[in-house]
Structures are given as structure tokens and as C-alpha cells.
């Protein structure tokens, strides 16, 4: 069986390539040069830039620690953020404490910005819980693994903000692949129709596991928003300044009643999809090499050096701090206790539930029967 070439063999003959040319907002080049943008800019003090640098280095370090823990069998799986640090720190730092963030499962950098203890991020991957933090305390929702589902939660939350008054905003994170799911598109419909104060933050890391963006879209993703009647913008996702500026603006627009914005952070998943994935089966080393040159951390470092804002001591101290935080997290990860068997029935319902109580009691006495034997 063949496909009539004239009809366009799926899925290669998209009218326009979805990933190139990347016309995007950039404020800091890969070489660490500051560039102007007519619409977006950000004023940052040296301390602020150093603080961003610190964030970037720490979240990368934490990621490496988690990868190591996974290799050693201490985590069941890990979804690495390597390469996406700037997208996450830039957007996470644009948030106010009272804004609400809805992550997917890879936003460890945003979790960091929301003051979520990195150890509690590991619980899900270690299998000791489905989530280890109180979302209300951090205004950082649970990780959501079912692709796209959280986009509607964010839209609903933003509708709640509207009803409460005030100027909070919601932000929701999802990947390039997620843009194909019905839920993500429904969240565009709802947010536009309701004019909800929400920012859609799409980390286009070029891959959905093994599928390149071409399998999902034939035009750049940020343009999806036009069709729903709100602005979409593509930003260099490896440029923490630009991400910060663009996200801040979008949040401000949301706050001031201008409704949703879709931000496409153009970045790259430098690692495997997760630790169970083998990217050599589907992508070329050369692509990885090209993206290494656009590293989100190196360019900030270069900028700091060039502008004599930081010296070797600073960089070393950050590395040391990251190391310390990493070891601390590792140690506390190993100490995470396995839950009790009875946790199975806890928190499923807010109030008593006769069926669950019955199951729990039966199981407890079943477990007890072994002890009797052992005794």
C-alpha cells in the first residue's frame, strides 16, 4: 500500500514547518549578549540576575541528583528538566505568591520557585505518595500526568479568581505534545469565552517522547491562540530574561482583564523523556549538539562575566550551595518512609465510607493473621 504523493503523505507535508524558523522573543543571546526587543524588556539588577543564575544552577543540580537516585534504584522513574531550566525559572519567577500554578510532571524548576521542598517532589517518583506538598500552601498544584487535564483545572481556577475579584492570575504548564489533546483546546475555548485571567505556558521541547513536533502541528504552536481569539507568543525558552519578561507581561494582561495568553517557550529536552526512555532510537545526536550551544545557564554566566557582575568566587559558591542542597535532598530522599498499608484507604473520601472501612478492617485482620502465625 502506498500513499498518493500528490495527496500529501502523512505526516510530512505540512504547509509550514512547525519548528522553524524560530521567530521568537530573545533578550539574551546564547553568547550572553543582551539584545533589545521593541515590545518586551525587563530591568534586572545584578543581584536579581545572580539570583536567577542561582536558581538555574540549583534546579539543574537537583535534577542530576534525581537522575542519580533513579539509576541507584531509589526512584522508580524521573522526568528530567535538563535544558528547560530557563523556561521554568523565568516563568516561575514571574509569578506572584498569590498566583496559582498548574504544572504537568516536569516542572521541578517551577516547584523550586514556589518554595516546594525538592524532596517532596521526589515522593511521586519514589512511589511513596502521589504528591508530597500541600498545593494550597504553595499555590502550586499537584503534578498532573494525564496529559492536558490540568489545563481545564487552571481555566476553572481562573474563573474562580474572576468571581473573587482581586488581581491574581493562573498559569498552566504543558508540553508541545499536549497541545493535541481535546482538554487543552477546550481550555482555550473556555478561557477565551470567559476572558479568564490565565497564562498558558507551553514548553515546546521539540519532542513528545519519540514524536517530533511535526506529528502534532504543521505551524508553530504559539499561533494556535489566534484561532481562539487571544494572543500567542513565542519566546526563546532557553533565555531566562526573555521568559521572565514575556510571562510577566502575560500575567499582567491577565490581571488587568485582558484575558488569556499562550506562551510557547521554544526549548529542548536535552535528556531522555524519562529514565525509562531511550532517545537514541528516534533522534540524532547532531540535534542535541546544536542545542548544547544554546544552553540556558551558560549564557547567563557569560553575561555575568562579561558585565563583571560576578567572579569565580560567586560561581563556586553557587556550585557549592547547589551541591549542598543536592546532598541534603538525596539524604532526605533515602529517609522518606514507606507509607503504612492502611494509607491505601486514607484520604480517598473526606468523611467515613463504610465500604472502605470494611475493606481496611478486613485487610488489617488479614495482615494480623500472619503475625499470629509468626508469633
Amino acid at each position, binding site marked *: 500500500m502506498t500513499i498518493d504523493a500528490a495527496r500529501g503523505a502523512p505526516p510530512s507535508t505540512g504547509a509550514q514547518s512547525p519548528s522553524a524558523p524560530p521567530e521568537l522573543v530573545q533578550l539574551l543571546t546564547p553568547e550572553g549578549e543582551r539584545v533589545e526587543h521593541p515590545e518586551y524588556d525587563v530591568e534586572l539588577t545584578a543581584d536579581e540576575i545572580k539570583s536567577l543564575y542561582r536558581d538555574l544552577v540549583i534546579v539543574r543540580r537537583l535534577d542530576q541528583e534525581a537522575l542519580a537516585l533513579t539509576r541507584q534504584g531509589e526512584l522508580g522513574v524521573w522526568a528530567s528538566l535538563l535544558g528547560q531550566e530557563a523556561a521554568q525559572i523565568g516563568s516561575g519567577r514571574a509569578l506572584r505568591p498569590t498566583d*496559582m500554578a498548574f504544572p504537568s510532571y516536569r516542572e521541578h524548576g517551577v516547584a523550586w520557585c514556589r518554595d516546594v521542598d525538592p524532596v517532596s517532589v521526589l515522593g511521586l517518583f519514589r512511589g511513596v*505518595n*502521589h*504528591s*508530597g506538598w*500541600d*498545593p*494550597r*500552601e504553595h499555590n502550586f*498544584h*499537584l503534578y*498532573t500526568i*494525564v496529559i492536558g*487535564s490540568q*489545563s*481545564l*483545572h*487552571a*481555566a*476553572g*481556577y*481562573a*474563573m*474562580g*479568581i*474572576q*468571581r*473573587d475579584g482581586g488581581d491574581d492570575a*493562573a498559569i498552566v504548564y504543558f508540553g508541545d505534545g499536549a497541545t493535541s489533546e*481535546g*482538554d487543552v483546546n*477546550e*481550555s482555550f*475555548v*473556555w478561557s477565551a*469565552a470567559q476572558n479568564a485571567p490565565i497564562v498558558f505556558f507551553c514548553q515546546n521541547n521539540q519532542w513528545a517522547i519519540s514524536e517530533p513536533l511535526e506529528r502534532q502541528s504543521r505551524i508553530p504552536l504559539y499561533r494556535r491562540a489566534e484561532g481562539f481569539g487571544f494572543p500567542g507568543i513565542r519566546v526563546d525558552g532557553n533565555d531566562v530574561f526573555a521568559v521572565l519578561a514575556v510571562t510577566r507581561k502575560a500575567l499582567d494582561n491577565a490581571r488587568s482583564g485582558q484575558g488569556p495568553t499562550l506562551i510557547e517557550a521554544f526549548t529542548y529536552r536535552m535528556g531522555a523523556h524519562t529514565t525509562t526512555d531511550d532517545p537514541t532510537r528516534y533522534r540524532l545526536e547532531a540535534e542535541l549538539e546544536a542545542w548544547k550551544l544554546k544552553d540556558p545557564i551558560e549564557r547567563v554566566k557569560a553575561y555575568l562575566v562579561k558585565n563583571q557582575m560576578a567572579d569565580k568566587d560567586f560561581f563556586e559558591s553557587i556550585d557549592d550551595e547547589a551541591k549542598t542542597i543536592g546532598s541534603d535532598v538525596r539524604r532526605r530522599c533515602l529517609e522518606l518512609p514507606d507509607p503504612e498499608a492502611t494509607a491505601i484507604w*486514607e*484520604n*480517598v*473520601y*473526606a*468523611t467515613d*465510607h*463504610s*465500604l*472502605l472501612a*470494611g475493606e481496611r478492617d478486613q485487610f488489617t485482620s488479614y495482615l494480623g493473621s500472619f503475625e499470629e502465625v509468626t508469633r
Partner: protein
Amino acid sequence: MSTETLSLSRAMNEGLRKAMENDPKVLVMGEDVGKLGGVFRVTDGLQKDFGEARVIDTPLAESGIVGTAIGLALRGYRPVCEIQFDGFVFPAFNQITSQLAKMRMRSLGTLELPVVIRIPFGGGIGAVEHHSESPEAYFTHTGGLRVVACSNPSDAYTMIQQAIACPDPVIFFEPKRRYWDKAPVELDLSAAASFESAVVAREGTDVTLLAYGPMVKTCLEAAQADEERSIEVVDIRSLNPLDESTVMDSVRRTGRCVVVHEAPVFNGYGAELAARITEKCFYHLESPVLRVGGFSTPYPPSRLEDHYLPDLDRVLDAVDRTFEW
């Protein structure tokens, strides 16, 4: 105590109104719930009285209805979603099973999801396809949800308020073809039974009929029509959790049991009742628990629904059979 005679749909409406008056966080959302008042007029007049911010005509997107309701709940609201017809809940299935049902547990109890999903269900109104489904078993099998069904105006009024007050997600089934049935409704909730309880709707000694929603009336009529046997009818009301003690008490007394629902029998809710009752009442049973229900096919064209749906004769036929074992 004050009572008023109301149709089931009107009783729902009054119950919703009460809940909205009592708690400003209660929202009503769904397709056509605003000016139209819903296709069954259950939300009639609510938008006029409570405004567009609290009674929301939503986009035509059921996954969105449940998904945004979850988000609203996370922000402190208590959304009551209307799914226009039973057959249209399936686009929302993912949000219900993987998100709504699990979120409290996934959050170690830090998040509360007081979302009610109202579903007019069942057949018997001569509707076109997808308008007569009985999807309750999909939800009773899903841990984290409470699943209830009302069968009469009084319960409609009471149970919807209890469901809205409940901190857990509740799937609330309304017996579509009974919307026009009228009965006196006690407007004061203080003496009302918990919406988790089953009730003996009619006492009897020879055999127990178990039903919920639209089939309760059918069973009561069957019991009434049977002049030979004394038939007890239990209105299950809460499908999950099940009020086991009321159910088992009845079956232990009568020794015979027939479960009746409109949903297909195969792996329907009746299967759970039959299996559970048999385990708990093995030596009390004179005959196996029999099940009367829809067939294991798609819902047929409406000209055939009288055959498909359990009626008085089919219920009594099953009762007969429990005496033939």
C-alpha cells in the same frame, strides 16, 4: 415542619435554590442552565435570581464542564454541574475518573473537591439515541466518587442539598422519566435521613426488591400488584457507599431478592449487589439473587424501549422465579 406538593424537577429546583441561598460559593453550571433553565427546567429561574456569575451557561464541552468545575472547587467554590443527558457524560469521563475522583487522595487529603455532577438518567421517555442511558456502574466502580440516585420529589429536594454540602465529589443521578411525578415534599431538612442510607420504601416479608432511581416506582407498583406475596421494596439511594445493613437486614428477613435497574445486567450495579448479598447472606438465601435489567446491547430505538426496560411484569416474573428454585 412545612410540606409542599412538588414535581421531582421542581423539587430539584427548590433544593438547588436553597443550597445557593445558604452558601454563596455554590455555583450551577452546564449547557443551557441559564435563561432556558435547563432542558428539564431543573435550573429554571436560578440565573435570573443569582446572576450569570453563579449560574453559568457553559461552552458545549463536557470535559470542560467537569475540568473547570474542579478548578473552581480548588478555588473554594462548590460547583453543581449539569450534564444535559446521560449519554453526554462520556466526554467528561477522563476528568471524572482520573481527576475528580482521585484528587483528594492524590493530594494526601489537602485538597477538597465538593463537586456535584447531576445526570438525568434512564429511558422511558421515547427519546432518540444517547438520551436514555444508565451509566451508573461506570461510576460505582470508580473509587473516590460518591454515587447516589433519587427516586421521588422528597429525596430529590433533600439529597441534592446533602450532596452539595458533602465535601466529596458526588455523582447525582436523577430519574428523568419521573421528573413530572408529584408528591408532598418536606421542606425542613433537619429530620431527613442521610443521603448515604437506603430506605425500606415498602415493607414485606416474602421477597426483597432492590432498586434505585426510576425503578423504585416500578417496583412499588409491582409489589402493590402482587396479591399473593408480601414484597418488600428497598430504595438503595446511595450506590456507593452502599448501606449494607439495611439491604442485608431485608434480605435476611425475606430470604429472596431481586435487583432491578434499567442499565444492562451484564456487569451492571446489580452484579455487585448480587455478589455482595450472596456472600453476606449465603445461608439465608432460598434462591439466588436474580437480576432484572436492560439487555447487554446498546439502548434500542424508543419503539422498543418498553421491551428493553424492566416493567411490572418482568419484575414479577423474576419474583416468580425466586420461588421456583
